[in-house]
């Protein structure tokens, strides 16, 4: 009865420490640092300057081009500067700094808990509202949502898939959202269905969240065309292509997009944000963040304003930075190790994971014993060991011929390697170089 994707995959320990912890509101920061590049694509252009007074929900950065997203203030107060701020990965990126004063929201935003089920807007208005609200893919990829919802000429969506898989170990943000905001989520799904003009939506949830499966299944029984699909536990089931395959059996052709397989995929967090934007007129200014790990006293799920410093959330959950060896933005499989804790929560911050010193260091690598575990684990059906060898020898043409660009960087190869070889490091290097070669060829 449980479905899954057909090629590869691994089974990391789930470690969902915070699964039973209800979402709590994080404290407002004293200073919010809101990056203007929180999405894939061009950074937004700041539309405020030093000294401006802003309210919660006010536009502070305007989308710059087609693949870009609006940025709104998540707090009320005074803009102290528009300057470079160091992001999670240690790069300097433009950001708006706001000194927080009170918590004053724009009057147009409906802050009540009243559920609004009736969808009054037409498809075009919905996509427009989603674009205005600055909604991006909240599973971590942060691809602007309105771009995905704009179905290209000549293509047709057959169904919508809502990603409630949360296959990354430790993270529970989506799980809690599905439990606590089920009704809003279903309305969000219906809005998305209307936006892309489909009659059918599937909500994919992994078997380790039986409470979410049963709750949403009950709610969907009353709805037309929404079906919960329970999925067998396997990483990387939350990968877009893997999820489409698990739910529908379809395969996105190599080098193509989900829409080429007739599917549009959105995360549950995104669907909830869509509900708030369309029904409540609320832009994307906060999200659920799981703070968890070995060195966290009380693993928690916070609703945090965008721009809240990571260090403040860590402190709120009783995280011990001194005893931690590594702090990760996201999960242990695809998350980014943080270079500094001054960086802030963005639209893509699904979790903050703190690992102890023992787990922080990478194990010593031995010689490849050609066990083929990486080949069996690769969900894209590639030969990671071979791609690593080609990249080490700088044989880029061979890398390309062996479909290195299909790699989704899920990390199954490294995870499964008994010799602990840094396979994906070299595959990334190869992807980067081959990508440059392909682009230069097109010019």
């Amino acid at each position, binding site marked *: 009865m449980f479905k899954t994707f057909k*090629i590869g995959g691994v089974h*990391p320990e789930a470690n969902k420490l915070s699964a039973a912890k209800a979402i709590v509101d994080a404290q407002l920061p004293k200073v919010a640092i809101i990056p203007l590049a929180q999405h894939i694509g061009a950074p937004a252009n700041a539309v405020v300057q030093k000294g401006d007074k802003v309210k919660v929900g006010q536009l502070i950065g305007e989308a710059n081009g087609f693949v870009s997203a609006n940025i709104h203030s998540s707090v009320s107060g005074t803009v102290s500067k528009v300057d470079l701020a160091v992001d999670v990965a240690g790069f300097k990126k433009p950001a708006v700094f706001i000194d927080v004063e009170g918590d004053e929201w724009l009057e147009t935003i409906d802050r009540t808990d009243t559920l609004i089920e009736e969808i009054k807007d037409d498809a075009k208005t919905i996509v427009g509202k989603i674009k205005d609200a600055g909604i991006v893919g909240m599973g971590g990829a942060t691809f602007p949502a309105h771009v995905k919802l704009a179905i290209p000429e000549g293509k047709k969506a057959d169904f919508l898939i809502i990603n409630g898989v949360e296959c990354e170990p430790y993270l529970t943000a989506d799980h809690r959202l599905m439990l606590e905001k089920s009704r809003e989520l279903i309305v969000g799904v219906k809005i998305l269905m209307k936006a892309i003009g489909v009659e059918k939506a599937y909500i994919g949830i992994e078997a380790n969240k039986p409470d979410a499966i049963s709750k949403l299944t009950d709610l969907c029984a009353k709805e037309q065309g929404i079906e919960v699909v329970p999925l067998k536990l396997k990483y990387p089931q939350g990968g877009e*292509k893997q999820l489409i395959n698990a739910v529908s059996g379809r395969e996105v052709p190599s080098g193509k997009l989900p829409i080429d397989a007739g599917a549009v995929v959105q995360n549950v967090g995104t669907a909830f944000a869509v509900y708030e934007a369309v029904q409540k007129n609320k832009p994307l200014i906060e999200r659920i963040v799981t703070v968890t790990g070995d060195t966290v006293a009380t693993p928690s799920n916070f609703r945090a304003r965008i721009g809240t410093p990571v260090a403040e959330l860590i402190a709120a959950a009783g995280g011990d930075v001194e005893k931690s060896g590594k702090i990760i933005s996201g999960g242990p499989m695809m998350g980014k190790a943080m270079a500094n804790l001054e960086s802030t929560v963005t639209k893509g911050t699904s979790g903050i994971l703190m690992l102890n010193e023992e787990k*922080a260091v990478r194990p010593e690598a031995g010689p490849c*014993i050609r066990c*083929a575990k990486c080949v069996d684990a*690769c969900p894209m059906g590639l030969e990671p060991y071979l791609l690593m060898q080609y990249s080490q020898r700088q044989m880029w043409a061979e890398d390309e011929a062996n479909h290195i660009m299909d790699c989704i960087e899920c990390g199954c190869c490294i*995870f499964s390697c008994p*010799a*602990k070889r840094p396979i994906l490091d070299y595959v990334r290097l190869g992807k980067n170089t081959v990508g440059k070669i392909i682009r230069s060829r097109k010019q």
Partner: protein
Amino acid sequence: MGQLVVSPSPHTRSSVSTPNLMFGVIAALLPALAVSVYYFGIGTLIVTLTSVASCVLFEYLIQKFLLKQQPTISDGSAILTGLLLAFNLPSNLPIGIIIVGAAFAIGVGKMAFGGLGQNLFNPALAGRVFLLISFPVQMTTWPVPKGFSTNYIDAETGATALNMMKNHFGSLPETTDMLLGQMGGSLGEVSAIALLIGFAFLLFRRIITWHIPVTIFATVFVFQGILYLADPTQFASPVAHLLAGGLMLGAIFMATDYVTSPMSICGKVVYAIGIGIITVVIRNFGSFPEGMSFAILIMNAVTPLINTYIKPKRFGEVK
């Protein structure tokens, strides 16, 4: 602060490591070793200990003094090679010959190619075939299983089942004896049951997949079955061939050697079919009664070619 590690994802690893795989295979060989001690007595222990000790020693010496690298004998791979080499030897083989075989297996079969993961041929089989060619008499006198009373040096010897099939003499052991291992042969190959228990353990621990062993069994069964049906007076039954000689040992433990077998599932099947066919051809039409080790070595040589031309099925492959 300042002590945080920043490295690329993933940040977690499976608990499976190279030593833990090697020792897993070693554990899977123990039932067959126990049966061998039961049937061949002290000889099994002497041959096995000599083989394992010399393989480990040669690897250590070569790494330390010849290649001047950090010895890696603790990864268990040299112990495994020693164990597998012993399993392919008669239980009355003189110590000197075993040491020569171990030197060849490790020195030429493994280290000359660059050590673990680099060798083209299965080192234990390379050692066995080297000994078979160099010491044909000693390598083909098989002690009769007499339990603990079996002598080491001047054991009573007899023919193997494959020898009888090939040269049409004597009566084959009962099928139950062949299953249990009460017959002449290399010390580790005789008990099909014990080897199959090891196979189950390897599958359970996910150390190997079923594809190579099962494909070899099926190929041998079908090919030998055709021959048997065509002329039962000339060719032995497929069941006897599955249980006799080194087929079980070879299919489960030697052909599945990570380093020398193909990487993709499809490639593994092709490789296993090749081993099955070559084995049946040598056993029925060649000059040796046993063809398993030659078949595996020949297909080892084909493995790089298989890896080049047979690729795993990709996700979203565009035809």
